[in-house]
């Protein structure tokens, strides 16, 4: 059947995309790869749920078969949750179909045989509007659409997988402390920090606030002062805390993309012209080695 074909390894994003398809007046066809997910998603408003059976544990390995399925069914759109697995599968399907694709879109709407998308480029400086004609692929992050409810038919389907790649081992990621993307408050350190010992200052501020510590890419990947999962930005963590306070962060666009959904942004930096201040609600232009200890003291009072 024609309509919007949907996949996400995150059920809440899948449910939101189903909501989008229904609001656009399209049939929503969901692909799932295990019975548990099929059951959980049973009342999510999908008109049809394909439960895919196959020989691989890696969903990305089904790209070629999924592309063929979409073509045979006359699909209008393959809409995929923007997670690492989803982006990989989506782009491979687009490659097999030789069709248009918009990645990590911030908006998606349906026109006359067209899909209109918006996304951020140039590290966050520019918003690009794109038009996709005919069968196309998009990836969508969570939180863009409202889920709906309703049941549809469930169909078992067997698809061929690429067997040239196999899963050897899966290990959970050992997060040191809480997940940054779920943190309510984040203290972020940037390259303005002079010595590794000065991390203590950030730790003290974080303790006074009850915040998690994050950093810019340079701190994690050039200086190795914090693990890679602590860096915030376009290629790192994307956070949405109530409060974000940066110390010695200049505010390069790649970093700002990772913090733009924060409720309140505070920048502390010695350089008045640092771009962080344009992205901030509140800022202090000053030496963080003077300002931060005073801030810790004020917060503790």
């Amino acid at each position: 059947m024609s309509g919007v074909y949907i996949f996400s390894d995150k059920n809440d994003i899948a449910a939101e995309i189903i909501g989008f398809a229904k609001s656009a007046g399209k049939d929503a066809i969901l692909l799932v790869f295990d019975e548990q997910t099929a059951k959980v998603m049973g009342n999510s408003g999908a008109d049809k749920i394909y439960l895919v059976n196959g020989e691989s544990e890696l969903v990305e390995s089904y790209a070629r078969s999924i592309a063929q399925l979409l073509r045979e069914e006359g699909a209008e759109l393959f809409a995929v949750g923007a997670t690492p697995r989803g982006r990989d599968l989506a782009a491979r399907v687009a490659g097999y179909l030789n069709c248009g694709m918009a990645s990590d879109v911030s908006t998606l709407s349906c026109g006359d045989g067209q899909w209109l998308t918006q996304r951020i480029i140039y590290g966050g400086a520019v918003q690009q509007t794109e038009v996709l004609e005919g069968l196309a692929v998009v990836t969508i992050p969570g939180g863009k659409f409202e889920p709906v409810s309703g049941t549809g038919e469930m169909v078992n389907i067997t698809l061929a997988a690429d067997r040239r790649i196999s899963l050897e081992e899966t290990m959970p990621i050992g997060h040191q402390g809480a997940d940054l993307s779920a943190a309510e408050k984040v203290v972020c350190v940037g390259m303005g920090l002079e010595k590794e010992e000065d991390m203590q200052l950030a730790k003290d501020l974080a303790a006074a606030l009850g915040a998690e510590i994050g950093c810019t890419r340079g701190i994690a990947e050039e200086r190795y002062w914090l693990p890679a999962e602590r860096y915030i930005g376009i290629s790192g963590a994307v956070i949405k805390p109530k409060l974000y306070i940066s110390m010695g962060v200049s505010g390069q666009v790649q970093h700002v993309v990772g913090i733009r959904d924060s409720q309140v942004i505070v920048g502390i930096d010695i350089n008045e012209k640092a771009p962080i201040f344009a992205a901030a609600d509140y800022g202090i232009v000053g030496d963080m080695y003077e300002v931060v200890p005073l801030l810790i003291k004020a917060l503790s009072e």
Partner: protein
Amino acid sequence: MARIVACYKWVVDEADIRINPDRSVDLSKAKKKISDYDKCAIEAAVQTATAIGGKAVGLTFGTADARQSLKDALSRGLEEVYYINAEEAAQADGAATANALAAAIKKMEEVNLVICAEGASDTYQRQTAPRIGAVLDWPVATSVSKLEVTGNTLTAVRKLDDCLQTVKVELPAVVSVLPEINNPPIPTLKAVLAAGKKPVKEFSAGELNADLVPKTRVADLQGYVMSRKNLIFKDGEAVDQVKELVAALKKEGVI
């Protein structure tokens, strides 16, 4: 000799982009650079080629001005660079880019691994590696934080949002690497001087016989405006600045 191909893109330095008051985008003063993340892809290719006794080569799809990138790419340890010089690159989307790169890879001999970055620092679409894999019908591993080639097999560690996966992939294959995979060194003066003598192989669009027609159409580009309060305390004593900040944050209800 087995070739390890690093794909890279010559991009506008986003730090030089100016947004006009009407939100139109001014790229006229922007310098260009090899996409930051692609430097990690190049370094990964060089390291892998060294480990297996292969040859690390670069591949780029760009307009005439991408010629300026060749020396920089070659100074990073690549032995040669393949340059698809085509005006179509200016309007290329993910489909056209992958079609061009895949067509060039098909023309090279003994390619056993193609390494891309996750995304380019200008568009950050994260499509190129999986799309090249699809066009060539080669297996793909994305989000790779560690890779090792033994014989005809690649072992890669993929860093996903919820776990680390170790996968084994039959070569030839395409991978995309995360920036944390390595820390590309700054080229030495000797490497920069040697780069001028290294070979460059140029392809024209016609030679490749690839579909370079974009499937997506850019309808509009606008400067992104973040509306924030921008209350910056820049004068007076630090102790008073801090007092004002704390009062403001209390009022916001975030502390």
